[in-house]
């Protein structure tokens, strides 16, 4: 996921020091950072952050996903331009690592820039849309960014509920894949995000298809689907 920058060709001095004749040389004076500069910017100076939740007023929708136990939790407030069915503003609070904080901050920029994002478009935001705007995330950190879009949808659902547009409420359905092991497509999605990208690894994590081999082709298909969705 991290982009590889081609090293700039240097004009070779006549004689190199012994250390630079080999390939592995400690980088002197360079900042080395796990994340892209964009993530760094959003992490250290978060945009649209709520500093005191008790002072947030007159919002149109509030959504929350995750829990501190699972490592990430996000709370999202939205303000709606009702006439144009657009998001005017989004504010948030996040408990989580740099990816989680950076992803929520970036999401808040994405939905409010250029005069606001139409709600229909906002409902379709996928985690990788946020990730790519962040300039990529290290593979094993992608799971930290997947709550942002869910939190936004949850806030929009809250708005639909409050504004009596129940027909617009989007429910996140989980589909049962393995009835015996009680494994849903969401479970498999989560497992893939956590790095289980082979059938064996998925089975170790979820027990899908263990003692129920007829569901294996579907499990394999889902692994392929989610692998392409997140890492493709």
């Amino acid at each position: 996921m991290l982009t590889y920058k081609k090293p700039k060709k240097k004009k070779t001095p006549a004689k190199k020091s012994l250390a630079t004749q080999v390939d592995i040389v400690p980088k002197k004076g360079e900042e080395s950072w796990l994340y892209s500069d964009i993530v760094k910017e959003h992490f250290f100076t978060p945009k649209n952050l709520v500093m005191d939740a008790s002072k947030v007023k007159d919002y149109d929708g509030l959504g929350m996903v995750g829990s501190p136990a699972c490592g990430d939790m996000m709370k999202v407030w939205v303000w709606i331009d009702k006439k144009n069915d657009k998001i005017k503003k989004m504010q948030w609070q996040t408990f989580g690592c740099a990816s989680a904080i950076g992803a929520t901050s970036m999401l808040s920029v994405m939905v409010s820039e250029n005069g606001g994002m139409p709600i229909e478009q906002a409902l379709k935001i996928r985690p990788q849309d946020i990730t790519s705007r962040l300039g990529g995330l290290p593979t094993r950190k992608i799971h930290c960014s997947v709550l942002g879009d869910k939190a936004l949808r949850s806030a929009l659902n809250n708005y639909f509920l409050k504004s009596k547009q129940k027909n617009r409420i989007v429910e996140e359905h989980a589909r049962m894949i393995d009835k015996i092991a009680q494994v849903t497509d969401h479970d498999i999605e989560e497992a893939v995000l956590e790095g289980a990208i082979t059938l064996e690894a998925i089975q170790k994590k979820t027990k899908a298809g263990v003692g129920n081999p007829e569901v294996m082709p579907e499990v394999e298909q889902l692994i392929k689907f989610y692998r392409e969705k997140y890492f493709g």
Partner: protein
Amino acid sequence: MKKNIYLDHAATTPTDIKVVKAMEPYWTREFGNPSALYSLGQKAKHALDDSRQIVAKIFNCQPEEIIFTGGGTESINLAIKGVVLASNLKPAHIITSNFEHHAVLNAAQTLKNQGHEVSLVPVDAEGLIMVDKLWSAIKKNTVLISIMTANNEVGTIQPIQEIGAKLKKINQERKAKKLPAIYLHTDACQAAGALDLNVEKLHIDLMTINGSKIYGPKGVGVLYIKRGTVLQALIDGGGQEKNWRSGTENVPGIVGLATALKIADSKKESENKRLTILRDWLIKKILTTIPKTLLNGHAQKRLPNNINISILDIEGEALLLYLDAIGIQASTGSACTAQDLEPSHVIRALGRPYEAAHGSLRLTLGRSTTKNDLIYLTKKLPSIVKKLRQTSPVSVNMDTLHSSIKKYPREITSA
């Protein structure tokens, strides 16, 4: 200029410049293979012998009881798997704690996958092994107990001497009943350089240490194997290290480890004294200046250099990145820095909920640490925590937290 304050000595230590100097001749000049008969080889062999003697003296054992390996993880694997494989029992049974380093836990898991039995003994809320449960876990086919001398994350020092002494008596009874002897292995990687490694006093059969935690080189370890211990090699080859660890010896690394251990041993007393004062000062300072904090591990029975505190409502990785930005390097038990996305099993074993594990901050002091470094840290930390707490929608109730720690089930589990 940006500060550079390294407070992650439990992860690894810088190699002492004296150690580097001691290793230097053995790269290019005295490069011989210790198995070779000509003088170049014999010089390398002498260096090995000297190193073995240095380690043996500090362990209070015979040089023949010391073997060198490729690191702490390898020594642990050899001790645990070697004893089980040599026992010829199927299943053999081993006992360890749910609090050990992954090298121990995963080696045990592999044995379990191969049909052997593993019991994990719990620790109490302060990280001390529940010794009564340890004894109740013993079965007829038990061949090994492996308990760490001191924990790498929260620094708790285990009563190894007490366990060793009691086990000696148990083994005498087992001998009369014609049951297999139970060996005692201790992972002393974190304890080396701080605690007494006298194997006779501790009554242990196997002990692991490594170079990279004692200002020595990485990739080299020691396994103490008490005379008479039956062990099967994991690496076969030319029969080096008494057939227990084949492969041409890492002479510079071994010389480095021995030198590092000698230096660490000579500094032990004064460093322990100095670091204990700094440790207790820092713990008190953080706990009193930052609300909603919780010390992980025992207040006194802990390594002199270890501070581990859960800072509630924030996530450890975010905290580490803020600290890194002001030049402080530390560590956390948060899942976000782990490969497997599970927060620290050590903090969880204490009975702390996930929230506390995610917000844990480990600071491990070392030779270069000064009071000024810690003053700088304590000046900066409260505002970073405040900022991150403002970002966070979480507010953990401390009373609920404490009562859930009390209610945490502490039972023997099987890996």
